[in-house]
């Protein structure tokens, strides 16, 4: 097959095809025989944290919320029928989302996948917004920002991040603020578009019951690829490790206090992102997950409830761990959780047996994702780093040992900076 590499993952009986087109676009196809839906996602390596960057002749500092604003505007079409309408026209559902480090556009279709792919690539190949479309967008995004601000769990999460990474884009909503979006002008958007919406800064993944060869041939002959764009050199600003704000709180219309604990590694991780993420997740599950005796004690004594959750974010730009819970005893729980994660005294939940059952659970979660077309596409992209692939997760799970996980987790939490964010009832 021309230019496509075939990978076979025997664990789950799954073939995956990857290749890179001449223009630098990375393409992955994950065939799913028997499924009706095909989803294609194109990821642009440009997210909310990339508001500051250096080009050949300029240092650029753009308003917060720019990547998200751009995401909305990319669907525009010089005031004519926009791209989401064009997708509807072929019966495909389309949407987009912006994260900290990337902007993702996707469609889901039943038939006419190739027409959908043409539209998706056309969508990100060129900007078509106007001053008028931009000014209309500001009203819509204001409503979006307000909606998120009204969600206490979201405020908890973003509040904790603002303490952990102060004076960086991570301290601000992905959509920006009501003030920052007013500052965004036409030139900001075109500058960002021309520097980051380049084929060699994107990755395409297609999941579904697709004819791999013919789709790949179609991609190679896609006409807009001929218009080669300049490839300006850009370097993104590092996320600054400013001193943390240890403790913040606010009052809001909530029933119970909400607590978030966020941990930043002593120094940024530079490699083995997927393995680090997996190790941290296993470590957290073992010590304070559903199957731990620590969680059971807290749950039985009414200190925590089902809202208890933890999240591990590991990517090339930054990493953090966040534990969130509704609790009547935020101060006591904060101390208990920090103490537990440091593991100065080894918990009785640390055992080979417990570890093994968690590995099985994680493998089951991985399998469950295989049956959800859109989740699979997104998870694949999220775990795609240089030399690292989502489908290696089962192998990594198999190889990780209890002592590796405990050593890694203990070291991470003993050295990490930690912040508390609390929302108290009014």
């Amino acid at each position, binding site marked *: 097959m021309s230019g496509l590499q075939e990978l076979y993952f025997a664990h789950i009986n799954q073939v995956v095809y990857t290749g890179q087109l001449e223009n630098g676009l990375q393409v992955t196809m994950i065939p799913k025989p028997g499924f009706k839906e095909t989803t294609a996602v194109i990821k642009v390596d440009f997210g909310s944290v990339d508001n500051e960057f250096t080009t050949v002749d300029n240092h650029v500092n753009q308003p917060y919320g720019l990547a998200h604003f751009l995401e909305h505007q990319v669907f525009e079409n010089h005031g004519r029928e926009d791209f989401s309408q064009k997708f509807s026209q072929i019966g495909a*559902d389309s949407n987009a989302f912006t994260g900290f480090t990337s902007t993702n556009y996707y469609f889901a279709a039943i038939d006419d996948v190739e027409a959908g792919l043409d539209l998706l690539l056309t969508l990100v190949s060129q900007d078509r917004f106007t001053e008028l479309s931009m000014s209309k967008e500001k009203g819509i995004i204001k409503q979006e920002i307000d909606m998120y601000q009204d969600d206490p769990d979201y405020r908890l999460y973003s509040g904790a991040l603002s303490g952990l990474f102060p004076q960086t884009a991570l301290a601000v909503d992905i959509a920006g603020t009501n003030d920052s979006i007013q500052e965004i002008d036409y030139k900001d958007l075109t500058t960002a578009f021309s520097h980051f919406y380049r084929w060699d800064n994107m990755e395409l993944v297609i999941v579904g019951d697709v004819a791999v060869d013919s789709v790949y041939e179609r991609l190679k002959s896609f006409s807009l690829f001929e218009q080669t764009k300049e490839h300006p050199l850009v370097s993104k600003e590092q996320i600054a490790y400013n001193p943390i704000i240890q403790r913040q709180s606010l009052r809001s219309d909530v029933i119970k206090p909400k607590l978030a604990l966020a941990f930043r590694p002593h120094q940024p991780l530079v490699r083995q992102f997927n393995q680090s993420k997996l190790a941290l997740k296993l470590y957290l599950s073992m010590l304070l997950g559903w199957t731990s005796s620590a969680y059971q004690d807290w749950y039985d004594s009414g200190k925590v409830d089902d809202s208890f959750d933890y999240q591990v974010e590991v990517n090339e730009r930054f990493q953090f761990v966040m534990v969130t819970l509704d609790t009547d005893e935020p101060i006591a729980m904060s101390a208990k959780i920090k103490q537990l994660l440091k593991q100065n005294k080894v918990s009785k939940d640390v055992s080979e047996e417990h570890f093994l059952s968690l590995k099985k659970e994680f493998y089951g979660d991985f399998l469950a994702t295989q049956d959800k077309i859109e989740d699979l596409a997104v998870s694949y992209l999220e775990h795609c780093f240089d030399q690292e692939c989502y489908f290696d997760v089962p192998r990594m799970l198999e190889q990780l040992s209890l002592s590796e996980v405990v050593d890694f987790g203990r070291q991470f939490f003993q050295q990490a900076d930690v912040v508390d964010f609390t929302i108290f009832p009014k």
Partner: protein
Amino acid sequence: MKIVEGVYLHFIQTEKFKTHHLTCRFSCPLTEDNRARRSLVAQMLATANQAYPTSRLFRQRLAELYGAHFSTKVSSKGMTHMLDIDISFASNNMVLTAENILDEVLEFLNSVLFQPLISIEQYQSKTFKTEQANLINYLEADKEDLFYYSDLELDKLYFNHPYLQESLYSTADKVAAENSYTAYQEFRRMMAEDRIDFFLVGSIEEYPVLQKFHQLPLKPRQTTLTYFYQQDLSNVIEEKIERRSTSQSILNLAYHSPIYYGDEDYPALLVFNGLLGLFPHSLLFTEIREKSSLAYSISSQVNPYTGYLKIQAGISKADRQKVLRLVTQQLMNLKTGRFSTQLLGKTKKMLLNSSQLALDNHKSLVELRYNQVALPNEFEQMKELRQAIQSVDKAAIRSVASKIRLQAIYFMEGED
């Protein structure tokens, strides 16, 4: 397949999934007391039982079964209450050991159903009290989710029937008024009197499974279920404004829409709702969001079991009248046929495609099968519904639009 009268097992055979799915659905008529009690039962079922007497042991077992995902949920169709136990789990050929995960999961379900955590006719009080306290908290916290909260407030305003005026999970007060005895007796009633449907989705060898189900100690039962609720059209539009200290305001509109699942104009109702507010190309989205920049989130939904259509929009406080006027205008355009045939065609295509998407999801397959076996309707085959959607024309849309009448407005007024 009938196990005994009122208890059925359904296989949904498909090769494409790497995981299997089991649903156990209890169906019964809505009553005054059963919502609160069944919410408590749903909590207890997902917490512990005699075989796995703490939530840690319960979860530990599920982890060992390759992270089998266990959950319970309540829902309704008209005047029928449904409690589901859902378990998704790895298919046997995807795991490295020789374990028979399906057998183990059936064994686990057995412990959930037949070994409840009780001490003499009532749930064990310590665990029960914790779960009750948590449920009360979750119900109180519902008001933190503004879209959900205002949706419940709209129901309260719209429905005449008291059972439909509150959340299916009931209210904090009513849950607090129940106890370990009343909740457990409700569970016994479910086991003895409810219609029970078991669904198994995946590539499954039927005979051994069927044998296992035949051994379950479930007695025959007679159930009469009403899946539809009708309420008279009112001449008065109920209106309520509530101030909250939020940024956004939420406008909620309730319409009488007397078209039910399986009715002749049911396909036209689906297309009508698609034109109005289900898709990015729908009128509410293009006119109110894209052209007028008045909302980020705006949509409509129909309930073909209660004859009810709702519209919900997150907006600024000052735009209430403007948005209401624009919504009314879109409905008027549908009523007078002022929309393009292109828009109609697009909507039908999107609806047909989303009906196909349902075939990729375990639980959607279960829902489709339930409707086929439990509901009286004319669309026993998906194919017929698809053809009916295909033939919906402008006249059918106008006819649906003329039957839709505004009945209630709930406005949650924020500060911005």
